[in-house]
């Protein structure tokens, strides 16, 4: 029988209330969103917070809308809500590709976008998708809000820049015309963490790639991004050769480790191949 260790529990009723509870209970308090990452970690004693601050009542953090220049995703948005959002899918199909392969439909109904990001598992899918899209994270503290680029959000495995008294409240993605995006994942079985996965977001000008973002997960890419691969694409024609070169660079510059999901060489192979496939599909979508 797996149960979490003894813990105190507080139910937050608003963002302000949650922040004041975090201030009151100090650095050993943890925010509890859907709990589908945190509670399993607590069962295994990999996380042992003294106090849980439950933010499931914070409907103010549950939204998905467009300001005209940005798509805004509230941190308490459930995975199923992101997957079900026509708005998100229309602008950034990469998000739907990724959500479709995150855990299973029941877990997606309760697990949250913000919770997944803050858990900061090095194999997490949305971290790679948001890295590809160069999203911006909004973090609230008692003093106010600050923004951090997605590519500066993670400090390392299971660690983010969200401080002890802070809460991730929103993810923002700039809306730019002429783009396409896609996510490709290989897992051992349905609903599993990836052996490797790659996301691509491209913006075209004619047949030339104006901007490209490539996200990688589960293969030890710094900040879930493949910068060298991206640089090789900017200004290049959107051809299979360019995709193949980007794939090679993505594989060269990531640092996968051998574990129960596979050996290093296999993961590098996947990093390359999935980058190519994601780019191909992203470009197809950009061309409409």
């Amino acid at each position, binding site marked *: 029988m797996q149960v979490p260790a003894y*813990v105190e529990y507080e139910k937050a009723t608003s963002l302000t209330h949650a922040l004041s509870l975090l201030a009151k209970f100090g650095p050993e308090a943890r925010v509890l969103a859907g*709990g*589908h990452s945190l*509670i399993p970690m607590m069962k295994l004693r990999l996380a042992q917070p003294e106090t849980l601050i439950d933010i*499931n009542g914070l409907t103010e953090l549950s939204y998905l809308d467009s300001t005209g220049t940005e798509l805004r995703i509230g941190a308490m948005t459930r995975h199923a809500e992101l997957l079900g959002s026509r708005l998100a899918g229309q602008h950034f199909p990469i998000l739907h590709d990724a959500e479709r392969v995150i855990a299973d439909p*029941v877990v997606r*109904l309760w697990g949250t976008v913000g919770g997944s990001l803050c858990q900061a598992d090095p194999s997490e899918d949305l971290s790679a998708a948001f890295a590809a899209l160069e999203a911006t994270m909004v973090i609230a503290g008692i003093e106010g809000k600050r923004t951090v680029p997605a590519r500066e959000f993670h400090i390392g495995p299971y660690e983010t820049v969200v401080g002890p008294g802070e809460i991730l409240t929103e993810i923002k993605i700039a809306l730019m015309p002429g783009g396409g995006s896609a996510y490709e994942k290989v897992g051992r079985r349905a*609903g599993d963490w990836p052996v490797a996965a790659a996301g691509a977001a491209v913006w075209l000008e004619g047949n030339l790639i104006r901007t490209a973002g490539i996200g990688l997960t589960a293969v030890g890419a710094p900040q879930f991004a493949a910068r060298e691969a991206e640089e090789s694409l900017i200004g290049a024609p959107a051809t299979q050769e360019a995709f193949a070169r980007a794939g090679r660079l993505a594989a060269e510059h990531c640092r996968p480790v051998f574990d129960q999901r596979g050996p290093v060489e296999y993961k590098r192979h996947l990093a390359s191949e999935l980058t190519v496939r994601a780019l191909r599909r992203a470009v197809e979508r950009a061309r409409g």
Partner: protein
Amino acid sequence: MRITLTVNGTEYSRIIEPRLLLIHLIRDELRLTGSHWGCDTSNCGACVLWLDETPVKSCTVLAAMADGRRVMTVEGLAAGTRLDPVQEGFARCHGLQCGFCTPGMMLTARWLLDHHPDPSEADIREALSGQVCRCTGYENIVRAVRWAADYEAAQDQADHS
């Protein structure tokens, strides 16, 4: 801490440790043993019940999180002595052998049909992909859900004619 929740229409109030998992509250405290406790890792889906309007894997939800909310377990599916069409489908199509996964399967299936009354076989398999059955295989489970969908469509038509 004290929590109050409504399970299958009945209000319960209990003093609990905050670390108590919802599945254990339901089974051990409230003695509603229809919900099963399986893998403990939110993989198998035997513990699925509804929290408000949503199926959840209750081995991965704290009982404290259900405070002030409504829970529906498999015991709440039937209306009195009339089985829910999903239950009827499982009975008619032999959608179970040992029955361990059945409560979770039926609660997710109920949610699927509420949101998607005419699911394809692929839709049913996708919806149930977070639930594991280790004995009958899935053919009869999919048939059972489809039976319920057909039954409900026929009922709807009868109501409108």
